[in-house]
Structures are given as C-alpha cells and as structure tokens.
C-alpha cells in the first residue's frame, strides 16, 4: 500500500482530534481527543518507519527502527499524562461535581 493512505488516514485522525479539542466541552472527551491526536502520530510514525526500512534496508539493516522506538516513548509518556490528567479531572470533579470546561471561567477577570 502506498504511504499516502497512511498519511491521509493519520492526518484525518489528527484533525478529528483537533476539532474535538476545540469544540467539545466535556474535559474527558477533550482528553480522549488529545489521545486520538497522539495515536494518529503513532500510526504515522510506524508507517514512515516501515517506508524508510523498505527504502534503506539494503544499506542499513536497522534503518527505520528508530521510528518504532519513538512510538514506544510516546505511548509511555501518554500513559503518564493519562494518569496525571485523570487525577486532575477527578480532583476537579470532587470540588465542583462537573467536568464541563465551561465552568473554567473563574480566572477570567
């Protein structure tokens, strides 16, 4: 399959994520949209990694593997972000009993 399909699929996913972040009001759904963005990047990185491997495998046997390693790091960092983010959302919920970001206007003077 040509690389274009992967690029378009992951850009589409990425844009869905961006639109979701900008339009949704529920903190958890915004959070899920951010995760979609990160996973779109993961998909793209793996596709590029495969592409570079096919292109350069003759010269360098390990060509393209660094893209996949990067995906591992993104996954781990995303997990750390999930745990911190969920903790923040739970803390918020315990105080105001809502996860609606429209409530976030206390700081606007």
């Amino acid at each position: 399959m040509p690389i274009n399909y992967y690029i378009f699929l992951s850009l589409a996913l990425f844009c869905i994520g961006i639109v979701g972040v900008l339009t949704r009001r529920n903190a958890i759904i915004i959070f899920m949209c951010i995760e979609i963005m990160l996973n779109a990047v993961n998909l793209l990185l793996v596709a590029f990694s495969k592409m570079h491997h096919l292109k350069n495998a003759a010269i360098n046997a390990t060509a393209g593997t660094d893209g996949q390693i990067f995906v591992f790091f993104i996954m781990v960092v995303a997990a750390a972000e999930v745990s911190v983010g969920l903790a923040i959302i739970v803390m918020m919920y315990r105080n105001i009993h809502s996860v609606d970001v429209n409530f976030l206007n206390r700081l606007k003077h």
Partner: protein
Amino acid sequence: MNALLLSAVLGVVMMFSGIWLKSKSAIRNVAIVGMALLLVVNILEMSGMIFFRIDTKGMIVFDRFALLFDSIAFLSTLLYLFLSAQDIEKVGINYADYFALIFFILCGITLTSSFKSLLILFLGVEIISIPLYILTGSDKRNLKSNEASLKYFLLGSFSTGLMLMGIALIYGDKGSFDTNSINLITETPSALIVAGMLLLLFSMAFKVSAAPFHFWAPDVYDGAPTVFTSFMATIVKAAVFIAFIRLFEEAFGNLQNKWQLLMAIITVATLFIGNITAVFQQSVKRMLAYSSIAQAGFMMLSVYAMNAEAKEGLLLYSAAYSFATIGIFAVLIKMKDYTFDGFNGFAKHQPLLAATTTIFLLSLAGIPLTAGFLAKFYMLKAALGTGKYLWLVIFAVIMAAVSVYYYFRVIQAMYFKEGDPPVLQITPVFKWTLVILAALVILLGIFPNLLLTWYYF
C-alpha cells in the same frame, strides 16, 4: 551527564525522604543540600570532571551552552529554595513530593538544554510539563488552582500533540530524528519538512507562551500557588527558550530565511500583547504573569536573530530575568494582599525588602546598571546584527519604555503612598538571600563577563 543522573536520583531521594523523615526542616535541608550538590557537580563538569560517561549515540551532547545554562538554572533554583522553601510548606501536606517534582523538572531541563535528537527534545519537554501540571494543581481545595491545572494540562498536552505531529512529518521526510541530519536541507524543502517545522514552531511558541499562543499563561500563572508560579515563570520558561533556540539553530538553521519573518511577527505580537495588557492589571501577580509574556517577547528576539550574540544574550537574559523575578515573587508570597494597593507604604515598614524589590523591578524594566539593561541591550544588538527588519528593534524599544510604567507603579506604591501593609514574617536567611540576589543583579549589570567568560573558556 553528571547533573542529568544526579537530578533524577535526587528526585527519588526526595520522594523517600517524605516517608522516612518526619520533620519538615529536615526535608527542606535535604532538598537544599541536594540542590547545592547538583550545582557543584555541574560546575565540575564544566571544568572537565565528568563522573559518568554513557554512550548516548550522539542523542545528548553537553556543550558549553547547555552546561552554562544548567548552572544558571541550578543556581536560580538554589536561591529560590533558600527564599521560598518554607512557603512551599503552606501549599499542601505532601511537602517532600513538591521538592521531588522540582528535581524531576530540573532533570527535564538538563535534557532540553542538551538534546541532539528530537526524541530527547520531546522527552525533556514532557518531563518538564508533567510535574508542572501537578505543581499547578497542588493546592487541592482551591478551585482556582484546580482550574489552572486542568487548563494547563489540556492545552499543554494539545501542544504536545502538535509537536509530535511535527516530529513525525519531519521523520517522514528525513528518516532520522537527529538534528544534524535534519539540517541537511537543500534549497527547496519538501512540504513535509515545512509543515513539520511550522508545527514545531507553534508548539514551542505555545510552551514559551509567545503570542498568539499565550492565552493559557496568565490564567495558569495566576491560578497556580504563588511559590510554584515563581518557579515556572522563570527557570522553566528560560529552559524552554534554550530548547527553542537550540532546535531552530541546529535543525532548521539552513532555513533561516524561511522562518525569520514569521518569528519576527510572533515577537512583535508577544511584545505588544504582553506589555499593553500588563498596563491594565490590578493584581501584581497577574501583572507579573503578563510581564513574563512581555519578557518572553524579548527572549524571542534571540530566537529570531540566531547569531553568536543572540546565544550569549539569551544566557544573560535568562539569568537576569530569573534572578529578578524570583526575588519579586519571593516578596510577593509574603504579602497578604496581591493588588498594587497592597504595596502601599511598604518602604516604611520593610526598607530592606522594598530596596531589593526596587532593584529587581528596575532590572526587569531595563534601567542601566542592572542586569536587565544589558540583557535587553544584547538582544537588540543581536537583532540589529541580522541587518533585517529595523522596525522590529524600534518596536521593542518602544515596548520596553511602556513596561517602565507598570513596573514603576509598584515602586510608586511602595515609596510614595501611605499605607499599612500587614506585618510579614521574615527570617534572616530570607533577607540575606534577597540581598545576594540583588547584588547578583547589579553585578551582572556592570560586569556581564563574569557570566559570559564561562561560555568561552
């Protein structure tokens, strides 16, 4: 490499000191000793004593620029701990954990100042950001703190998403994350490289709160506990600027004529929004938040200019800005009332504190004989050195003049207005550290080479 490993280990040590040590002063002392050790070890590395030699396959390079900035960051943090370590106690019950998070952030700072691979840039930025989300929300019962934390978290991870997309697109074109091999770009960069560079530019502008990506900064800085605002508005911001200039010099240096105009526009917008909005603030804390955006505008000048003077200037600027702002915040924490009127008559009650605060404010405004003046001077000289966009320099000077207004409002309130600010609890250590900070600000304003010789020898 010394500082990188030691800061991570010290973070773990601080985590456990919260469990084993019962007294708060013991925890504080461990943190301060650890911080001093970190500074000493980093300075030893600058003079050639490297304790750990780990083959990172060229992903991390500790050059002089990185090491000198790390030293500035560690020194600032040490002074910050001397001033504000007792105030961290008032934030919440997890006293030792806050110090642990600060050490982890410093670990991230050593990564962002010395990366040679986009992987390390990403990891460093995230290691800085994730503890900051926690520190912002550390005042768990305070709704403003909660809100700031959630806002920072959502927008911060959004910008991380943009950064990752940029990295992925660049990888698609180049097949490598190494900054040197990304920089081997012919005259016409491909669409992937341009899109990736723009996404990286936006996300870095977001992290340093440059306009038009600044909107999170005032709310987050205002909502976070003031002790942590002090840390994140100074040391962390300077560290991300170091990463910014490093990224654009090493990975996109060959494309300078493509992004320079965009960078100039961002600089102008940041200067304008930061300074003009700061004029209308009623709370000193919020004014300092906008002032940090305005100062970010000046630091953007160095990223725009990208020459030898710009790098020297950025180091000087980060030292001058960090020292002055940490000092002002330390005084602000001791106040009960954060409005300008809260400072009325401050000079009569606390002459020493008022005098040092005046020095810090003068430095931020860029009055001669202070470090802030020379730092701004280096920035403008670097921008002139590019030989393009004279209007940018003129605009920056006008904005520096505007900034004098809101900094002098505090001085005016302290010296020329009658009032009775609440009596503060001031320890001798606090006073002496403030005096040392003020002395450093003036010393760097007269002999900037004290700092900059370290860059070359």
